[in-house]
């Protein structure tokens, strides 16, 4: 006898915009945005560190608001706009945050980097001149085990200066 699974209730059709492009996909009600981005749509730049909202590796913006994509159900993004790390670079090169992360050696293993970049961009979008404390406060939801954060905080402050000028 074949047991039926909870996933057998049929898939749901979702339309959204990812990094400026219209996308549509089918998902189960129980799938997170993170899962669909990574496994379904191939946006593997968004990382999974904990799958329970505690590390920030999966940070994306949803209609401009910073969220942990592991805590968003994929069905919730119907009609909404998502930006992932893959959407940060601009046509003629890297975003200043990406460039400063490289110059300051702000990544070691780099698994936290996409999350930090997306979160930092969300900060600079609303506060282009943050203090060190404001940067630390904003990024406290993003964990990095490698760097001790020093070079990350410096890169964000330096990038803010570039963005302002």
């Amino acid at each position, binding site marked *: 006898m074949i047991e039926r699974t909870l996933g057998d209730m049929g898939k749901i059709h979702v339309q959204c915009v990812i990094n400026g492009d219209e996308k549509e996909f089918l998902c189960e009600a129980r799938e997170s945005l993170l899962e669909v981005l990574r496994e379904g749509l191939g946006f593997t730049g968004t990382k999974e*560190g904990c799958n329970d909202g505690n590390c920030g590796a999966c940070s994306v913006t949803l209609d401009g608001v910073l969220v942990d994509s592991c805590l968003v159900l994929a069905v919730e993004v119907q009609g909404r706009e998502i930006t992932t790390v893959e959407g940060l670079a601009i046509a003629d090169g890297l975003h200043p945050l990406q460039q400063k992360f490289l*110059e300051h050696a702000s990544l070691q*293993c780099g698994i936290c980097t996409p999350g930090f970049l997306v979160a930092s961009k969300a900060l600079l979008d609303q506060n282009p001149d943050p203090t060190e404390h404001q940067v630390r406060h904003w990024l406290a939801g993003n964990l990095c085990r*490698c760097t001790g954060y020093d070079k990350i905080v410096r890169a964000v402050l330096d990038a803010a200066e570039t963005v302002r000028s």
Partner: protein
Amino acid sequence: MLSSHGEIRSFGDEKYKVVGTRPIRHDGTDKVTGRAVYGGDTRLPGMLYGQVLRSPHAHARIRSIDSSKAEALDGVKSVVTAADLPPTASDEMVDLGEGPARVKFMRDNILATDKVLYRGHAVAGVAATSPHIADEALSLIEVDYEVLPPVVTVLEAMKEGAPLIHEDLTTMELGEDTDKNSNIASHMQHTLGDVEQAMAGAHLTAEFEVHTSSVHQGYIEPQNATAFWNQDGMLTIWTSTQGAFTAQRQLGAILGVPVARIKVVPQEIGGGFGGKIPVYLEPVASLLSRQTGHPVKLIMSRADVFEATGPTPGSYIRVTMGVDSSGKLVAAEAYIAFEAGGYPGSPVFAAAMCVFACYDIPNCLVDFYDVVVNKPRSFAYRAPGSTHVAFAVEKVMDELAAKLGVDALELRIQNAATEGMRRSDGIVYPRIGCKECLEVARDHDHFKTPLEGPNRGRGVAVGYWFNIGFKSSVTASVNNDGSVNLVEGSTDIGGTRTSIAMQFAETLGLAAEDINPSVGDTSAIGYTDVTGGSRVTYATGWAAYEAAQDVKAQMLKRVAMVWEVEDDEVEFDDGVFRHKTDASKSLNFKELAAKLDDTGGPVVGNGSVDPAAGVGGSFCVNIVDLEVDPETGKVDILRFTAIQDAGKAIHPSYVEGQMQGGSVQGIGWGLNEEYFFTDEGRMANSSFLDYRIPTTLDLPMIDTVIVEVPNPGHPFGVRGVGEASIAPPPAAIACAIKNAVGAQLCVLPMRPDRILAALDEAGDRVSVAAG
């Protein structure tokens, strides 16, 4: 504020062009754009998803496993248990490059055979068409357990009559099997001189007794593995591992397959710190793939990472040290007991080598014990064992200084380990930088700036870690535009592709940007040991230097061919081949590269090394200022300086990064990281929310000083720097807390409640002035 370039204090006089600069890492753009492929990003056609069923009990016998309901679930393709692994003789050993390991223990840790030894111990694996279905299937597997009493702390486990974790484990006593059943896997000893006599004759002695909790490596990327066992019998594994070749050997031993039939493809890796040396999911994914004929991907949940992968051991340590009236250390004694977890093999041996490594002490006795408990099998974590012992030793040094009425840093300088000294484990030091680091600390602005304000204190401590040496391979192929493709065997966890490429470039007078470094899989490069033991920039960098020498020798022959002269008429200097006597003849590397096609074809250079272990090593000193809130017991780090000997910093930014990262891990270990175990042996805080690693908001900037005392055992004088920085912070923090509020902390972590209790004990809950 914005510059992230720390200070460098050099004691060497070599001048380099590439070494010591700060180029952008070669893999950087892929890592800031999200394009780099990490283990968990692996996606293959027809791929299935796996999950692992884990024991809910810390200690139990498995009576039976019934997976029939799970197998019947729609979408489930396979269920595997230990019965699907080949049997292993109980005494079979495998060499993993970091010493031999018992295959039976490795195998039982992958999938439990007859007993589960910790909560989270893997029992069965499932492959299904989606991770959710695999998850549902886990709840349908019926395991009948006979629950046994757990033992979760080292001192309990060592007691006569403690529940036995392995009924057949007997104690090795100073290398001899005692045939005595016990949780003590081994008792070992190092002796130097005559401690009893020297201690009796000491002017002053101080003793300190500490307990430390299990802490986790805490890498942000969970363990993952994707396996495809092809119909021709070839097994390919894509995984985030610290050592592709070590993983290959482990897999061969556990699965009973010749390594020639296993290819391990190391994907980008999201941190390891020692925890990604052992395999966990790879054998399970392999079995599932063999049974289904599909690639199978497994990723651990964060809770599984905490509950089932190697934490560093909890420990009990007692240290006594004695000085003569001049403050010279005359004797030291340590008792060290480590929780190995479910299977023997804690890093207590390394702890015993590190315990008195920073000081010149003629008489030492170190007794050390490896003890099994019902916790996950412990594995290496950054400078394994060194942080534990530094906590005890450095507190004793502060006590001795207080009793002698001298400055604690001066006492350390007076007794610092130097070249020619014999360590308690018998090693005689070559040129090392312990004293230099301590003196740089004493002369540093941080140390010279008075710390003011109530409840504030400053602490200083020093720690040590080896460069383990070991085997590395590098292959270099010269392209006809003069660029070079460099394949190396060390997985790159923190920018080492670049530090290896820089050593290659320096040797040939090229620029870092001329080199395209990549990490090879086990079929693409020679054997290379793990990324660990602070060895990659040191040993694989050395292999790159050797590969460059090989390229140089081959290129030199080509020049001779072009000029139609003898080989020995050509010399090479700073990227240019010249005729020794005819000044009109010169060719630079790029010009010559363009001629390779016409002079015999490609030039491919090889380098492989196996440097002796124990050369040099690295010392790290911390100065920490903090403030204790006497109402809540909370500690705020106000200023932190790490000073470490890098021998020669190849890429100073990544050296600083190692120092800062290790320092912050040490701060977390010191102040709040720990496994909470219930009486039943269940970890109660297996999430990043409850097992709290430091966040941006907990920390100040971490200042660094790179000290360069060249390593005589390396072509560029490199010392590996990955680990020593984690050793001193808990000790420095404990010393600072004592100086701030008089509280004597002897248990890690130094949580607020422990600080309040220690303040009560000190009889002093009111503010005291900073000391």
